[in-house]
């Protein structure tokens, strides 16, 4: 390999250092530090306008950063732009394609732009069309394809030269649930052979295929963890909801006296009171984070009727909204 970026170990595929982009007075991306090892599938999340597309465009060399550095497969995206671009398969937002071309012609065109040899083009075209389920529509004009099929064409084109790094900007935008799960399956199949950075503003979509989720908001990284860990962090925010036939004040008093309960909020509706309980995580008592058993005994003792008791774990979605809102406030 040619000169490499600093002394990065070979297995870091995407690396950014204090990557920043200003559009005039607007700061789109602010000091982003990201490091993605080889073979990882990373979900890149954020609300619209968080700086996802800007970051991806800087990585692919479409726009230069205002300051900071980025390197892909060991090549600086600014100083060794062409080498870096050679390692990247990129599916831009909205999947721009030439509508008047046939699927096969388009892939041929992209292959030539990548300087692939005739035999390599033929071979790889067969592989990617097969993989992306395009074999039957290779002769069709792209402009007449459904949105899902068009998306597959974009994906096939991005995969054409077997890039080490795949950068996909909102590949599932505007697709129906079936097509989304299909794209998800396709991306999942790329595991290990490619490093994938896939952006989205819909969390559950990413959660299922990514090894790691990076959430950005306001140009910063707001969270960076595995989907499982994110879930774990969520469960700590879990609250217990109990619906009891009892007087609100009496209920609150009794609940607060129960081991493992930190905070109780009561909503009374008729003779039913709904209590939202925040468990006490500090307590060392046997109830620990789960005061349900103690609560049950307490309710039984008071002879109060219960019609519901459940754990309310905020969905990743809520968590996402929460942390991105926090970032917006800080900004």
């Amino acid at each position: 390999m040619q000169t490499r970026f600093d002394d990065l170990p070979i297995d870091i595929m995407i690396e950014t250092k204090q990557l920043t982009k200003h559009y005039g007075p607007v700061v789109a991306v602010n000091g982003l530090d990201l490091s993605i090892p080889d073979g990882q599938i990373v979900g890149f999340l954020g609300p619209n306008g968080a700086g996802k597309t800007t970051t991806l465009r800087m990585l692919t060399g479409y726009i230069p950063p205002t300051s900071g550095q980025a390197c892909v497969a060991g090549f600086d995206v600014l100083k060794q732009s062409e080498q870096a671009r050679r390692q990247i398969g990129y599916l831009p937002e909205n999947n721009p394609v030439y509508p008047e071309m046939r699927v096969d012609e388009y892939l041929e065109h992209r292959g030539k732009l990548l300087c692939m040899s005739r035999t390599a083009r033929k071979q790889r075209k067969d592989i990617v069309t097969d993989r992306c389920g395009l074999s039957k529509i290779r002769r069709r004009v792209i402009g007449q394809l459904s949105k899902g099929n068009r998306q597959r064409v974009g994906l096939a084109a991005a995969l054409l030269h077997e890039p080490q790094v795949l950068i996909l900007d909102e590949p599932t935008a505007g697709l129906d649930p079936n097509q989304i799960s299909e794209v998800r399956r396709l991306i999942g199949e790329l595991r290990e052979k490619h490093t994938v950075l896939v952006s989205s503003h819909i969390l559950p979509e990413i959660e299922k295929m990514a090894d790691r989720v990076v959430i950005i908001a306001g140009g910063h990284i707001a969270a960076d963890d595995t989907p499982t860990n994110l879930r774990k962090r969520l469960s700590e925010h879990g609250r217990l909801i109990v619906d009891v036939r009892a007087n609100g004040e009496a209920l609150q008093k009794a609940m607060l006296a129960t081991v493992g309960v930190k905070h109780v909020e009561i909503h009374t509706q008729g003779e039913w009171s709904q209590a939202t309980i925040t468990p006490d995580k500090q307590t060392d008592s046997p109830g620990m984070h789960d005061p349900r058993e103690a609560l049950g005994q307490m309710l039984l003792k008071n002879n109060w009727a219960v019609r519901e008791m459940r754990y309310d774990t905020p969905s990743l979605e809520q968590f996402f909204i929460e942390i991105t809102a926090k970032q917006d406030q800080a900004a």
Partner: protein
Amino acid sequence: MHQTLTIARREITSLFFSPIAYVVLGLFALGVTWIFFLGFVPGQQATMRSVFGLVARFMIFILPAVSMRLLADETRSGTLEVLMTSPINDAQVVVGKWLGAMGFLLVLISPLIVLIGVMEIYADPDYGPIITGFVGLLLIGGLYLAMGTLASAATQNQIIAFFITLFLIGMFTIVTMILGSMNLANANVREAIFYLNVETHYAQFNRGLIDTADVVFFLSGIVLFLFLAVKLLESRRWR
């Protein structure tokens, strides 16, 4: 080079996918034939001079319509992002686009060959001026298309690109002609302005003369405008 030709090839095929291309080609062929036969009477000289001269005038209005979509359309549809993130440089994109448009220009003026064939049947044309005239047409067309490529890089609106091109061509034809024929105090300035007039340079070719100075004028003009187009495209990177 290989990638430049790839872009040129795609450009020319896509040009033929737009219905406007056929309208332009049809009207042009019709107009040229009509003018040809107006002057095609016994006793006249067997030359293409007046026809070529008019073709050069037609191109002022036709070529901006050919070049307006070159880069503007790619910017608007977002396919420019695909091009610019492929391992190719901005100059390859610009030159490829311009070459594609040149290919269309070749198709556009090909009916002239048929007319020359007709002339051959009835008369004995002098091929010297015809060949130099053809070279001149390609050079003047290349220059207009280079101006159009620049205009197309400046905006994502094709209509605006059309009018910018028309304006640029106007500067080098009508405006310089009017200014050059005015009685300016300084003869040097007058001469300089007159030098910039495209049509005076073309007239030499049509007369059967290939003057290096004229060739240099056209080629440097083409290089200049394509260079500016590359710079404009690059400016996207620091805007």
